[in-house]
Every structure is written in C-alpha cells, then in structure tokens.
C-alpha cells in the first residue's frame, strides 16, 4: 500500500490514466448460470476483476441451534484465490475477507424475502480469481445475479459500485492505481436500485461532507448502470433456458444433487 508520487495527476483533460472519463465504469460483463451443481451461479468480469459466484439453498440450517424460526440466514462468503492478488495471499481467510463477507451478507438480507424460508440457510459463495480494486462490490453484484438465477425470491437486485477520490477528483469505479493515490478515498456502495435504499456503505480515507455529497450522487448513478447489466445477464439466461427446454435435455444426469 505504498502511496507514491505525491503530485501524481490522476485526471488530465477530463480523462483518467486508463482513458476513462470521471464517471465511467470499467468494462463489465456478467453471465448467469455458469455452474451445473449450484442452484444459481454467475461469472463476472469487471475490468481486470474476475469473479465466480454460486448459490446453494435454502437448505435446513445446521446445527439446529443456529436456526431462526422467523427467517432464512444468509451465509455469504467472499474469498480470494491465493494467486488473485499482487502478493500471494495465504489460503486461510483473512480478517479483511471475513469483514467483507459480514457486511456483504447483511446487504443481501434486505433484498431477499428471508421470511419465506424459516429455519434455513442460503449459502452465497464468491471466489475472486483475479483482482484490480473494487472486488467487494463486484462480488456483491455477481452474488445478486446468482441469487436471482437460483430463483430465490427477491424484493430487488443489489447493485454495487465503488466510488471515491484520487488526485483530488471524485471518480467512479476506482482501479488499483487510483486506490493507491496518496489522497485516495474508497467508498464501496450497494443499493436496491428501484428504491435507492443503501444496503452497503463503507469508506476509508479523508473526505469532507461536501465531497461525500458529490460521491454519493455518482455512486447512485453507477449502481444503476450496473443494474442494467445485471438485468441483461438474467434476461439472456432466461431466453437460453427457454430455448433449451424446447430441446431434449441430454445433460440431466449431472443435475439435482444439490437438493
């Protein structure tokens, strides 16, 4: 986490170092339903970030004493492959991964109709295969698509994006270089896009309330762009599924174990 070159310019002529505009996302591709064993799944590429998400459940929560008789539990696990970061990560989950898993799981809780599945647990497992800043919001975005793919009833999608500051500018979807700016501020944000309810919000770095107002506006806008890509991925999956159903299902032998 070296904060290099105090005077580095991160925006020149309205363009960032990677050529993006201030309010521009990195390329985002989402594919739903990529794994056969999981109830729902998603593969996502967002800039250099590469992420797979899978959903299992709802199944009976075990051991029994963790069951909640009023609602399902969300077991969200965010993990990074050892080789997905610049320095090799230990295979054991670190404190960062555990904290991200906690707040991301809480963000999903608001979106899911948990009360329909008392005494159960919904497993949401996300693996980061390659990374370049913004993996927690990318992971949440992928997880939300995997939940929808699994047919889990949801109030709304969860759409997430990073927003923040680098070189004095408020910008959308920071990459690693920007996150390493000496004045960098990183604000992961996730919302239910239809109501703008904020379900995940973190920040670190020095930020004034005025800068925050600007960042929030940009964040909400970014989340909605992400939402469109999520919906498109699900639409595409749905169309494919319809097409497949018309044909004989020759792959049936490897489906159904998850039940």
């Amino acid at each position: 986490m070296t904060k290099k070159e105090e005077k580095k310019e991160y925006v020149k002529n309205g363009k960032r170092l990677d050529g993006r505009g201030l309010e521009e996302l990195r390329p985002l591709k989402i594919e739903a339903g990529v794994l056969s064993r999981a109830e729902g799944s998603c593969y996502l590429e967002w800039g250099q970030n590469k992420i797979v998400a899978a959903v299992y459940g709802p199944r009976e929560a075990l051991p029994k004493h963790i069951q909640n008789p009023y609602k399902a539990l969300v077991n969200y696990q965010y993990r990074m492959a050892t080789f997905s970061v610049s320095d090799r990560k230990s295979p054991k989950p670190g404190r960062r991964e555990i904290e991200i898993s906690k707040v991301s799981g809480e963000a999903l809780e608001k979106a899911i109709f948990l009360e329909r599945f008392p005494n159960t647990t919904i497993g949401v497992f996300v693996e980061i295969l390659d990374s370049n800043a913004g993996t927690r919001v990318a992971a949440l975005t992928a997880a939300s698509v995997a939940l929808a793919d699994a047919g889990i009833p949801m109030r709304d999608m969860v759409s997430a994006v990073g927003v923040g500051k680098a070189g004095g500018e408020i910008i959308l979807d920071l990459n690693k270089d920007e996150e390493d700016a000496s004045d960098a501020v990183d604000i992961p944000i996730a919302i239910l896009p239809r109501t703008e309810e904020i379900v995940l919000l973190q920040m670190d770095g020095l930020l004034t309330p005025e800068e925050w107002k600007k960042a929030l506006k940009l964040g909400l806008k970014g989340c909605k762009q992400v939402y469109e890509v999520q919906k498109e991925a699900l639409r595409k999956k749905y169309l494919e599924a319809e097409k497949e159903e018309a044909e004989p299902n020759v792959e049936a032998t490897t489906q159904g174990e998850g039940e």
Partner: protein
Amino acid sequence: MASDIVLDLRADKVIEAIRQGKRLDGRKFDEYREIKIIKNISKNANGSARVLFGETDVIAGVKMVPGDPFPDTPKEGSISVGAEFLPLASPLFEYGPPGKEEMELARVIDRGIRESKCLDFEKLCIKEGEKVWVVFIDLYTMNDDGNLFDAFSIAALSALLETKIPKLEDEYKIVKGEFSGKLHLARKPLLCTTTKIAGHLISDACFAEEKAMEARFSVATTEDGYMAAYQKGGSGSFSPKEIDDCIDLAFAEAKEMRKQL
C-alpha cells in the same frame, strides 16, 4: 432459549416507545449516556483507558513493540487493533478465536485511526528497512450495555493519548520502565454510531435498543472537519437523506465527546 424470548419482548417495548418519540431510559433520540473516562488503568500498558457509557464498560490498552516493517513500506511503522468480547461482559459472549463481529469492530476502529492520519507512520520508524514500532491497541469488553463501537473508539483514542514510547537499547531491546517520550497524535478521530430503529435515528443505543435495530451507521470524524471512515452494519438500509443526518450527528457528537478527553 428463554433469554431470546425475553430479548424479543424487550425489543417490542423499545420499538413501541420509539414510535411514541420516547426511549425506555428517558433519553432524547440524539442523547448519549453519561461518559466516564478513567485513564492509565494498567501500569504495564504503554497507555490505557477504561471508558463507561452508562453501564457499558470497556478497556483499551496500548503496547508498542519493535517489529519488522512491511517490505513495501520500509520507513513506516504500523498499528494493529484487536477486539475481544470477553464473556465477563455478556451471557452471549464466549471465549474463542475472534468472531466476525469482533473483527468488524476492530477493523472499523483501525480505519478511523489509520485513515485520519492521526499517527505519522514515518515517525514510528526505528531504522529504515529494519525495525519499526508496531502500535498494538487491544480492546476488551467488561460489561456490554450497547454501543461498543463508540465506547471502544473513545477508549482507544484515550489510551493512545496517554501512550509513552518505550526506551530502546542494544538491538531494539526495550528498557523496562523507561520511556523516550509520548506518542504524538496529529488528530483526534472519534467514531459516532447512529442506530436506526423503527425508521428513527437514535444515538448511543443501549443493549436493548440494539436488539431492536434495523441498521447502524458509524462515522469517524476529526476535529478539522473530515470523515476518516464509515461503516454501515445490520440487515436494514438507509436512505441517502438518513446517511446525511447520521453524518451531521456524528460531527456534532464527536465535538462534544472530544471535550472530555
């Protein structure tokens, strides 16, 4: 368990009261409990403090230890924040490896201190590329009556403000009982947490109120108008307007608290 039912009943009462614009203990929505700070409670610590928010009772202790620098910051010391929810403090706590609540809390306290740049990490360098100070800040619960985030934040800051830097001899060996000065803090970051219950924003939630909470939002502010960290927790949500209100509350309340340091 019976205690869960008791908690549920109590949460119902909390919500009922708040809907009527009241809190069970008579406080206003934005009112903190009485805060007591007792400094230097442990001579073996380099700095320490016990903080009470009403019946919430927590301890912070600081130890400075010579350690190896990270390879990519050879000139910088570092901090390490740990939080342990001692079973002393609540029938709900158990010994064991840190749980996710303890980790979240420790990491939010850590970011408030780290990102506020209140500590100059370069001044914590002993010898470039070889030895730096690691400032261990360890937090323990004694009695949990809610709002551990804010109590730990003020305890950590109080302990840091008292911290004496150990004297070194030979190869980075600490001379017991001797000190080379006091740790310098450039800013005084404090975390203030707002809790959303039944759609209302409440300051300094006590334990019973936390059981009724939808979500919480914690903001670390500095005396010169910055936010250094924030964190939303809980399964509920905030509207953008509510977040703004939380931020305003956090600045106002930290200002009051800072007077007591």
